[in-house]
């Protein structure tokens, strides 16, 4: 095929071509300038990533043979931020239109200026939502006709460059599709800049041209646009782009060093010395264990799950573990459950399917499920008999082990109701002997609010010592 000899062939996704843009659309040219930029800078294509949202210009990601993501509408910047945080080595660029970046994803665009991550945002401004037939968008010029503003746009447009300057982007430039060599210059500088970079690229849209009876926006850009070495504040303004367009680099700053914040002081450290519990780590032999804690919001279900997972990790730091929690919209009194997974291998699904160990602090979850208690046939249930209606457990297979403790009652009589979860934990530790006692105690000290360590520990002890009378 001839396309294989094309100098851009390495970076083009050839099986996707020919591309879908309208004849006369110059978005494809932005793709070419991006490829040229990568080639000029000598970047390894494996280290470049492009993230785009939805829109005509966002199709670029589909035609580049890099690792690209086509994200949801407007969410290109947060997706790119995630990529960058996960692998800071990558050069991450966001390609999108004005509707995607400034309209739907406007807040993310502002937030990136604050975050200060090294992302390059290339925003192709074609003055509206062109993919859906040209509705008016945030950058549609005053008085321009679109589908939704058939007698002229009554709203003033936003100025992307001004917004980016105000939001704190360290590199801000404006170019057009008719000046690809200038655009390459800007892109090269943007890629080199270590902070968030933004380039507004004006591109003509055929639909805009036809609706507004403009012969050729491309010719207009070539005619009216002036590339300037030094730009003044007036050049930022672009309200009448039919008369005057100033192109150039508005800002190219180094990234500011952040001052060290000393606002957050740890109060935890003070108490830690007093309750320094020694524990021994050992191989637990757990291959895959699903633990679920069910109850009512306010019973410390999430806290209990956290203690469980910390204790397990104290004992066998080689385990992989996840904690997920689910609760209803109510803060207190609604059903609530916490899933803990312990696995010797990587965890690819973080939710518990069928628990091996079920800790029930109330029957609410089971009742919502229609009275069904989900448990592995060979599993273990530890139930707070002062809270759970024991008739729920009647239909279980004989192989399921059930241990009962009136944890809430013990807590109410001897301590406070809030430590019922730790009474239950003590009992779990004793009856199941999956995790060592001291690992549990260290985990409790770590998760208890400062000053309540003693209370929580004695609650745990009383659960550990509980014997059915």
């Amino acid at each position, binding site marked *: 095929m001839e*396309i294989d000899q094309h100098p851009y062939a390495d970076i083009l996704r050839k099986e996707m*071509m*020919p*591309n879908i843009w309208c*004849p*006369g*659309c110059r978005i494809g040219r932005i793709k*070419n*300038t991006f490829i040229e930029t990568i080639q000029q800078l000598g970047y390894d294509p494996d280290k470049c990533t492009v993230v785009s949202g939805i829109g005509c210009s966002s199709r670029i990601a589909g035609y580049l043979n890099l690792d690209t993501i086509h994200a949801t509408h407007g969410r290109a910047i947060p997706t790119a931020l995630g990529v960058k945080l996960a692998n800071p080595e990558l050069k991450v660029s966001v390609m999108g239109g004005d509707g995607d970046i400034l309209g739907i994803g406007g807040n993310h665009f502002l937030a990136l200026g604050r975050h200060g991550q090294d992302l390059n945002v290339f925003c192709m401004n074609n003055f509206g939502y062109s993919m859906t037939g040209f509705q008016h968008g945030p950058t549609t010029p005053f008085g321009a006709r679109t589908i939704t503003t058939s007698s002229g746009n009554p709203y003033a447009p936003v100025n992307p460059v001004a917004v980016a300057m105000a939001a704190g982007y360290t590199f801000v430039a404006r170019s057009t599709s008719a000046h690809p060599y*200038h655009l390459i210059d800007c892109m090269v500088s943007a890629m080199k800049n270590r902070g968030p970079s933004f380039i507004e690229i004006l591109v003509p849209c055929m639909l805009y041209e036809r609706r507004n009876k403009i012969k050729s926006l491309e010719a207009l850009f070539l005619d009216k646009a002036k590339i300037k070495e030094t730009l003044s504040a007036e050049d930022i303004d672009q309200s009448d782009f039919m008369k005057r367009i100033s192109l150039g680099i508005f800002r190219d700053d180094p990234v500011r060093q952040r001052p060290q914040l000393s606002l957050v002081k740890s109060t935890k450290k003070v108490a830690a010395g007093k309750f320094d519990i020694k524990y021994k780590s050992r191989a637990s032999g757990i291959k895959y264990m699903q633990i679920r804690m069910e109850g009512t919001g306010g019973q410390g279900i999430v806290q209990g799950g956290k203690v469980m997972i910390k204790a397990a990790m104290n004992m066998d730091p080689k385990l992989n573990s996840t904690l997920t929690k689910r609760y209803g919209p109510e803060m207190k009194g609604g059903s609530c459950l916490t899933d803990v997974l312990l696995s010797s291998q990587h965890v690819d699904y973080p939710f518990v399917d069928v628990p091996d160990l079920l800790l029930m602090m109330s029957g609410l979850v089971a009742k919502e499920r229609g009275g069904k208690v989900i448990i592995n046939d060979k599993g273990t249930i530890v139930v707070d008999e002062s809270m759970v209606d024991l008739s729920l457990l009647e239909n279980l297979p004989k192989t399921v082990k059930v241990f009962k403790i009136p944890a809430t009652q013990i807590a109410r009589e001897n301590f406070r109701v809030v430590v019922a979860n730790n009474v239950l934990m003590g009992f779990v530790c004793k009856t199941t002997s999956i995790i060592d006692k001291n690992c549990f105690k260290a985990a409790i000290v770590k998760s208890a609010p400062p000053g309540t360590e003693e209370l929580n520990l004695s609650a745990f002890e009383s659960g550990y010592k509980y014997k059915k009378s």
Partner: protein
Amino acid sequence: MKHEVSPVRYWNIQECTIPVGKVTIIANFCKGGEDCDDCIRFCPEKVLERGTVPNERGFFPPILVDDGKCTVCGRCQLYCSENAIFVEKTGERVVTPDEIAHREENS
């Protein structure tokens, strides 16, 4: 700021040679016609012209009118949104003083 174009595209002033290239047009990709014709418009050497034979999608891809004149500036390749045209350097040729004078007049 100067953009850096790959050295093949620079003219060799000392030896008075300029690059000669081969232009390849991928007719099926092209969306030429009234709306595009960018390669034709931006080619400084006027090497291309709009063709008269439509491709399978009804567009008119450009045709080469003077093969030897392309100087491998790479503009058509960069400007073409469809990646339907590209150039490769095949050699160099010596420019005569007449041609230089002619170029200077027209520039």
